[in-house]
């Protein structure tokens, strides 16, 4: 096939590079969602630790 003129080739080239960009952006969005889940888990762990410390303090007070 003869080479496409610039006007016709442009959209194909743009589409290919946009596909790459979209793929990377989707990946980053998925990673962001995972990060949110990690942050939520971290909050839960921090909550558990706080509760445990409060209970230990309470037991110490009762023992005194």
């Amino acid at each position, binding site marked *: 096939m003869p080479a496409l003129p610039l006007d016709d080739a442009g959209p*194909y080239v743009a589409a290919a590079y946009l*596909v790459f960009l979209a793929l990377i952006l989707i990946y980053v969005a998925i990673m962001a969602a995972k990060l949110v889940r990690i942050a939520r*888990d971290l909050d839960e762990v921090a909550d558990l630790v706080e509760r445990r410390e409060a209970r230990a303090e309470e037991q110490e007070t009762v023992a005194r």
Partner: protein
Amino acid sequence: MFARGLKSLSIASVVLIVGAFALVFFYAPNDADQGFVQKIFYLHVPLSIVTLCGFVAGGIFGIRYLMTGDRAHDLRSYVAIHISLILAVGALITGSIWAKASWGHWWVWDEPTLVSFLIVFLLYACYQPLRFAIEDPGRQARTAAVFSIVAGAFVPVNFMAVRLASTFVHPRVLGTTGGSMPGEMRLTFLAALAGMAVMFVTLWKYELTSKQASMRLRALRRRLAEDEDRWVPDRRSAAPQQL
């Protein structure tokens, strides 16, 4: 363990990718035969090469896992294949766009390079369901390692088989005669390849770090929750669940 050098890698991959794309559009000349549409080559070919190398790397980590029993290698293998699968989708779509622009068809079934890449992609598409189907973590890791080694060995064999095929419709980039790219095109191609390779390593380390953080958090939560008698078992997953 996995986060070391992630910041500098991220910066390097952005600089290299942006630099390579700048070279593509402002430095590399238009191809005499294909014209402007050949610019897809600097995206599609490095993407395909890095994808195939990622699959082979998955196999190498599979070997290391079977030799040492270290779960970190299983995780490395899993993530390498995972990222390669994502990039393979990109390679297939950009290749299809290039095919439409140059050959007038989105897909050509009698072209060995295209079909062999699709076969490799479909083969690796079975990797995640295979892992998900096995509940026992040890067995899951061992089976996945064997799969990654066999499939990883298939990649270069497949590559050589395509090279030996008689039809040469698909353009050869790394030709046996030293290639026929002019200097500017070669430099741009190598810059794009380097950018894509560094980006792969960055995403790989990024995913490994994220998975390791989740695993550690889960283990910590389990330890804390066990004391409070409200332990929740892990949900089934294709990804390795512990190191």
